[in-house]
């Protein structure tokens, strides 16, 4: 290939500079949206810079991060920092250039990076991502930490007692939470359910890729419509975990395009007060959990006190243990525990912490 400076090839990038505004008007310019492939060879650095500018011009958030993650992925790396520096100044092959353009054009439509590269990391796992299955958020990594810390306290570090522990997850999405728990606790078993068949399929796929399928049962169940189906799966779980849809319905329309256009709204919309699915899960919790078993929920920052009050009145078998905050300092996680059931002639059936 002829080696020319990027400037010489610039005329061929995008339509904006090439099309005289006066004749065609701005709508026509926007209509030819995908930047054309460069005619000349470019380096990875130039490609990233070029796309960062395209993203900026089009108001795509995280313009630099997006171009970096996509390019890194092209090289088989997770981050651009881990790509050998020399590689970034070499010319990209034709195929690499085409692939970069193809993937970045998807990002132009506000497709989340995780869907563009079809994968993302969650703690120490790399998971396959596919729209519209919900993309795990960084806050949820902490939810897993909370559960792991408690499991460790409950049964000591990795001994035989672990074999008796089962964890139930409601709304598994891509499988992030359950698979993370299984990876960290080799003796743990998990049961995961989701109302979306696509989520069930993706979780299954991720479980297979990680070799964790033997310890994970996945079921296609909608706990709102058919809670009994979930209750029949497990009655003595040590832990019930969920990152349920918890957004307020009225907030749905304010979501960024990345979410609105590509992620399953039923994975996000928790109803008018965001508590619909949460309440259902907590109502089911006493039947799923063993005595002293715990429920761990990720929620909206406005929820913890509401949940505490509601549970006190409506789910007496559960004791509200505590609220934990996420890395940004927002109240994010609710921990509840199933009270032990006492039976005896004097007391009758009652509850004890």
């Amino acid at each position, binding site marked *: 290939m002829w080696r020319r400076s990027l400037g010489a090839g610039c005329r061929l990038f995008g339509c904006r500079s090439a099309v005289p505004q006066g004749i065609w008007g701005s709508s026509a310019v926007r209509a030819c949206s995908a930047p054309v492939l460069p005619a000349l060879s470019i380096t990875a650095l130039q490609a990233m810079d070029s796309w960062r500018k395209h993203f900026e011009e089009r108001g795509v958030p995280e313009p630099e991060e997006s171009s970096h993650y996509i390019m890194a992925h092209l090289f088989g790396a997770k981050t651009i920092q881990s790509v050998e520096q020399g590689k970034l100044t070499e010319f990209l092959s034709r195929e690499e250039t085409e692939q970069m353009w193809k993937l970045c054009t998807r990002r132009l439509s506000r497709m989340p990076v995780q869907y563009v590269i079809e994968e993302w990391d969650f703690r*120490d796992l790399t998971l396959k991502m596919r729209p519209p299955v919900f*993309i795990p958020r960084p*806050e949820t990594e902490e939810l897993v*930490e909370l559960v792991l810390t408690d499991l460790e306290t409950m049964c000591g570090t990795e001994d035989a007692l672990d074999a008796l522990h089962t964890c139930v997850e409601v709304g598994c999405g891509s499988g992030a939470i359950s698979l993370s728990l299984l990876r960290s606790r080799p003796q743990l078993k998990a049961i995961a359910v989701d109302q979306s068949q696509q989520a069930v399929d993706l979780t299954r796929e991720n479980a297979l890729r990680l070799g964790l399928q033997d310890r994970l049962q996945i079921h296609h169940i909608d706990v709102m419509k058919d809670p009994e189906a979930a209750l029949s799966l497990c009655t003595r779980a040590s832990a019930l975990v969920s990152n349920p849809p918890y957004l307020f319905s009225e907030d749905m329309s304010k979501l960024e395009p990345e979410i609105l256009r590509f992620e399953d709204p039923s994975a996000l919309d928790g109803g008018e007060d965001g508590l619909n699915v949460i309440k259902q899960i907590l109502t089911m919790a006493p039947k799923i959990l063993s005595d002293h078993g715990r429920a761990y929920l990720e929620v909206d920052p406005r929820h913890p006190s509401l949940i505490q009050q509601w549970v006190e009145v409506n789910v007496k078998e559960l004791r509200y243990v505590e609220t934990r905050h996420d890395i940004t300092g927002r109240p994010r996680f609710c921990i509840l525990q199933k009270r032990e059931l006492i039976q005896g002639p004097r007391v009758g059936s009652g509850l004890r912490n």
Partner: protein
Amino acid sequence: MSRLVPLITSVCRGVLWRRGCPGVSPSLNPLPGLTWVPAAGKKDLVDLPVLDEDELEEQFVRGSGPGGQATNKTSNCVVLKHVPTGIVVKCHQTRSVEINRKRARGIMREKLDVAYKGELSELIVKKKESVHKKQEKKKKAHENLERKRLFKEALVTESTHE
């Protein structure tokens, strides 16, 4: 109950500094490689200073909204500040915030080690200097006494010879 208190909230970027984070568990290996293998590598992790979470402030930008499900961002840069020394560590080595947090702590321990060592060698130099100064003082005082003695002797000798 959480000991966490958001210290500063920047209105335009919604950044919250968080003091201490007991939630960070050791269950993830943040530094795969030398420093975690006891036998290999130049520095055993045992030698590095232990972090007190109460002395740390952590920052992770998540926007000014409610975060969580309402936001999907790929930025996962963690900034860790050691308040007593003012040392700041930034980490965005991986695509996991949790792992970046742990790595940031590992790097912080190494930096604190260097900082403390630096202080330590400074102390040693200062001590040597003060010891040297004392010695010099003594030497001079001794020399002065000697000079005076000789002077006196000289006077006495003179007077006896007159």
